[in-house]
């Protein structure tokens, strides 16, 4: 019965898309590496399904056939070296088949050399601060006002009536399409974690340590994420919004931000 439920859920999982409600699976994301991550996830998933079908299959056959109520006389065997060698060796082989492609992806994930732009991301209780290293741009990014009002206890505001409830910010991070963006992530107080599922990036923001990660977005759009490491009472209220735009539009954005820079950067310094 459990296997049936599992399988039907599985079928549901394949038919659905990531963005729909009742979403069942990991998003494929918008970078080469997020797709690779998704593929690793699915590869191991299918290995598990295959192993599950065999193990649970044998077990279910046994549960159906080898019952006392069917008048079965129990066998007396208690070991078989051959069987034990086989079912130790096969998992080792499967694990090697899994580990090799995974290790290849890991090497790519860590290679943040030669970025096009670098952004310093600093976690605060409970908002994010972004500083574009080569431009004179720096700003805080906090939960959008619409959600701030709706999130209060018994606020009377229907969360479904708020656009992107808890996943919208006042100032999103803006990055150009097809550029290698390096993030230098740190924290000003406690440990946070910067996570955007569509980029397949999650990196802890640790006080006193600067962590590095990178991505190269291949699709224009707005992508949302959240702080992933418990950081105090408003841990659930420090979302991340990233806008990927065409390089020309990005250049225009940089120019306008620079003009407005004193207001924002001044507040920061």
């Amino acid at each position, binding site marked *: 019965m459990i296997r049936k439920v599992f399988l039907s859920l599985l079928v549901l999982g394949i038919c659905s898309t990531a963005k729909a409600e009742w979403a069942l699976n*990991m998003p494929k994301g918008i970078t080469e590496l997020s797709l690779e991550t998704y593929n690793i996830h699915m590869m191991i998933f299918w290995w598990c399904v295959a192993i599950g079908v065999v193990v649970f299959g044998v077990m279910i056959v046994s549960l159906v056939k080898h019952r006392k109520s069917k008048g079965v006389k129990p066998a007396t065997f*208690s070991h078989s070296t051959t069987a034990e060698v086989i079912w130790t060796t096969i998992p080792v082989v499967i694990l090697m088949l899994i580990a090799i492609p995974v290790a290849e992806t890991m090497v790519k994930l860590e290679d943040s050399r030669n970025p096009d732009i670098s952004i310093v991301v600093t976690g605060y209780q409970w908002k994010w601060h972004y500083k574009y290293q080569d431009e004179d741009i720096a700003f805080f990014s906090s939960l959008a006002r619409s959600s701030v009002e709706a999130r209060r206890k018994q606020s009377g505001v229907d969360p479904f009536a708020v656009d992107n409830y808890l996943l919208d910010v006042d100032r999103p991070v803006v990055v150009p399409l097809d550029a290698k963006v390096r993030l230098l992530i740190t924290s000003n107080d406690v440990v946070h974690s910067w996570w955007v599922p569509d980029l397949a*990036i999650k990196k802890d923001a640790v006080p006193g340590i600067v962590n590095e990660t990178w991505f190269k977005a291949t699709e224009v759009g707005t992508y949302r994420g959240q702080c992933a490491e*418990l950081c105090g009472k408003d*841990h*659930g209220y420090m979302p991340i919004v990233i806008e990927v735009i065409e390089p020309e539009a990005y250049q225009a954005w940089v120019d306008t931000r620079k003009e407005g820079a004193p207001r924002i950067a001044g507040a920061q310094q």
Partner: protein
Amino acid sequence: MSTTVADLHEHHEDHGPAKGIGRWLFATNHKDIGTMYLIFSLTMFFIGGAMAMVIRSELAIPGLQFVHPEFFNSMTTMHALIMVFGAVMPAFVGLANWMIPLMIGAPDMALPRMNNWSFWILPVAFGILLSTLFMPGGAPAGGWTMYPPLILQTGDAFPFLIFSVHLMGISSIMGAINVIVTIINMRAPDMSLLKMPMFVWTWLITAYLLIAVMPVLAGAVTMLLTDQFFGTSFFLAAGGGDPVMFQHIFWFFGHPEVYIMILPAFGVVSEIIPTFSRKPLFGHDSMVYAASSIAFLSFIVWAHHMFTVGMPLTGQMFFMFATMLIAVPTGVKIFNWVATMWRGAMTFETPMLFSLAFVFLFTIGGFSGLMLAAAPADIQYHDTYFVVAHFHYVLVPGSVFAIMAGAYYWLPKWTGHMYNETLGKLHFWASTIFVNLTFFPMHFLGLAGMPRRIPDYSTQFADFNTVASIGAIGFGLSQLIFVWVILSAWKGSKATDRVWEGSHGLEWTVPSPAPYHTFETPPKARIANEAFD
């Protein structure tokens, strides 16, 4: 050693239990102490469960309805501490106290007074921990993992948290010493190590794990304490310390801790499946080697809890490969259980049903564990509901189901009466359906991007959260049946000595209920077992 203990007991031969409260306060009898551990654990299971109900009620629909975020964080923190240290671990120590002397033919635990001490520390430790709920600043809300610097923002509760964790550690270490000394010194003369029942074996390994890692946890929390009050900077970046070092130390304790909670469960299930399959456990020795390998590997995989913390590539690779290796001995255990069932003559009493569900559902938790081992995928799963689903699958239909299976299996030996089988089955089916309804949807929530430990969430996560909350309330209510079955067992039909048709082992050679003193002269284990065939 064993002769000295036997001599001492000669004088007490006719003594029953002491009268009144003194029997429990000054208990040195392994059966009394085992009973107290089990009752304590069940109490904590309900207190921790009530906290889970608060969590799931708040998360049933989006928006903040019942509690403030600070209190929500206290609930997740306290739920975990209570379930791990108050419910699961003491339940296994209770089973160990009751069953290890009976299984190896010993008159009692080797160190009865220390046994008393290790139990009575626990109510004090948890009294202190629970009292923090009423302190200024509230109960600890930094997660059971107590990561600094966040945990240092705890209010007045902070030193009480540290003290209660110290006490829990002391209690566990004393319990573990007792288990090891008992097993090594007090076995029936003809019971060699490799002839020991699987439950005894897994507990022996668990006890070594406990002694190895509980002091590490104590060290870690002591450093938190001195960082907070005595001006040290072990984990404070501003003073040259490293917050990540705490995570390394914590998980060096934390990962073996995971196996401390599952190895005795493997032992319980390895006792029950052969009994109801009417067939010896398949590959007894390879089960022992598998459990030992798991215990060894548990010391070299801790940083797989920290793939997002910023580790060198080679470090990540090492911890990923080591973690994947654990799938091999764990697989051996599962295959051996299936091979034990194969061509047996199975019946499906409640202990067997719980054990079968254990094998199915623990395996599902094992699968998600394998997925989590792959570092790039873990970067997506880490700190999401996918992880919550994973560890609840291995802990609830894993450890907790095994504890319940054990409770049903040995209850007739403890009470002398059979429990009500219909109610037992009702409890099993209700628990199994609701546990899946609660935790399976959490896989989807995590994959869709819902972080853990948040009191409120975006609307696209609404549907599965509602399903999980309904399941959780159902699971919570189902456990009331368990209490009812236990209480009503005192009116059940009289149990035979052997209780189950297929049972083997010394514990079934003594009368039901087990007399206050058993095995005052060491039995012959082999002869006792041959009598059953």
